């Protein structure tokens, strides 16, 4: 029975921050900070307006894209970039497997775990571009420096996600295989690998995608590949060739994106 309104009790969801004063202080603080931050941006509107027509000429100079006059350089850059992408993904993933296994808390004993986590932390500290600058200084200009930078980037990414996927696996499936008297390697192959494989294949194709885009970036600091070609085109004010290169990069990234989607669906 529904009773009289006098006995009805009110209910409101409890607030995320219990203390009302603290809640209001945080809100007001955030608003004040944003107002000050935007206020401190020193925008010279006069110069912005002055720059607009120049921007227009700049953008227009990209059209029509010119695939022809720098054709050989573009092909060479692309081949280098694709080479860098594939080799660094393969080498990075291969090195990631033992490190990822070692960095999974449910598989590795404590010393191995901390060692592998330390390797991960170090390889994740530096973005690919910093690594590329470093390796260009060490080994000189060219795609080898780019390859090394991307390989280390791949390890930081792939081994960490592999370790986390292993930590999330279903323990009872693993327990069942252990109960048969399987050795450690057999256990990895029968209980762990089938559980993590689909995600790992998906992440590997995603990493190919990332490495290709990064290969354009590392090229700009001397790591070879299409980035170097792109930089040369900009330096020579050949914006139509640069536009062609950008279009090719976009097409390849979209192609990789699409096929990695297909692969991920297929391995599930």
């Amino acid at each position: 029975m529904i009773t009289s309104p006098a006995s009805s009790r009110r209910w409101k969801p409890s607030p995320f921050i219990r203390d009302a004063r603290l809640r209001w202080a945080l809100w007001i603080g955030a608003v004040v900070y944003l107002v000050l931050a935007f206020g401190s941006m020193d925008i010279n509107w006069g110069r912005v307006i002055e720059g607009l027509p120049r921007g227009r000429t700049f953008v227009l100079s990209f059209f029509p894209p010119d695939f022809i006059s720098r054709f050989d350089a573009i092909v060479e850059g692309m081949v280098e970039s694709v080479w860098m992408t594939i080799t660094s993904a393969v080498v990075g993933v291969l090195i990631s497997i033992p490190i990822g296994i070692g960095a999974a808390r449910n598989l590795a004993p404590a010393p191995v775990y901390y060692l592998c986590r330390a390797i991960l932390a170090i390889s994740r500290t530096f973005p690919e571009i910093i690594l590329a600058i470093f390796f260009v200084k060490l080994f000189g200009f060219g795609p080898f420096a780019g390859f090394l930078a991307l390989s280390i980037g791949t390890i930081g990414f792939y081994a960490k996600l592999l370790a986390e996927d292993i930590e999330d696996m279903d323990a009872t499936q693993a327990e069942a295989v252990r109960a048969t008297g399987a050795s450690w390697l057999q256990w990895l192959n029968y209980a762990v690998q089938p559980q993590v494989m689909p995600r790992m294949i998906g992440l590997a194709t995603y990493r190919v995608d990332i490495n290709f885009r990064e290969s354009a970036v590392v090229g700009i600091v001397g790591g070879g590949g299409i980035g170097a070609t792109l930089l040369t085109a900009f330096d020579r004010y050949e914006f139509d060739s640069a536009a062609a290169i950008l279009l090719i990069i976009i097409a390849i990234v979209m192609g990789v994106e699409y096929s990695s989607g297909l692969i991920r669906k297929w391995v599930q």
Partner: protein
Amino acid sequence: MLRLENLVKQYPTGDRALQGVTLEVPKGQVMALIGPSGAGKSTLIRCVNRLVEPTGGTVFLHDLELTALGAGALRKARRRMGMIFQEYALVERLSVMENVLSGRLGYVGFWRSYLRHFPQSDIDTAFHLLDRVELSDMVDKRADELSGGQRQRVGIARALIQDPELLLVDEPTASLDPKTSRQIMRLICELCAERGLTAIINIHDVLLAQLFAQRIVGLQHGAIVYDGPPDGLTPDVLTHIYGEEDWEATIAKDDEPEASSSSLA
């Protein structure tokens, strides 16, 4: 055949799951282990094959002291103990055949198992067992495509292909409907009888335990509070194991007909 002496398990959290359990199971006996959730049933069977390391006490399989074995010898000993799990614990992305053959991992080397190149005798046995549990047309299906009852029968085949002497069965019917539960229990008991296997079956369902087991052991707070024949489970005994409740309807009557058909669904 299996002897537990003063078995103790204390988890790092301080919970004493087993407080000195002593138990002997003779060859060929099917023993049901009943008790409320958290009584230590799962811990007990996992201490036998040391998926859980006991903190104290000893376990003997014949004259082999399981609790004293090193890693290599433990792997060898685990081959003699088949385990069947609650929720089946099949490797879901492997095929039915791979799941069954994984029961032979203790017998074959790494590369043979990695290449899925098992000895022909193992493959013959696997087909024979899949026939026996009526799954021979599911060989190449992935485990996650099967129904609950089918999965549990794959689990049974995986345990049997180890050629075990002892079956450790953990809540085999917990996720199955009543009819399938009976079929699975009957299948396990038939196979034990055919092969002269000893079995410890953890089970929630008192009625199923009474129907199928030759001996019932009741566990409460990690200690044995009942050990006797199925018809010794009186309301008083059940109250002692589980706590106060009206038990009359739960207890199997002698004249109860064997429910459900004998074929597998």
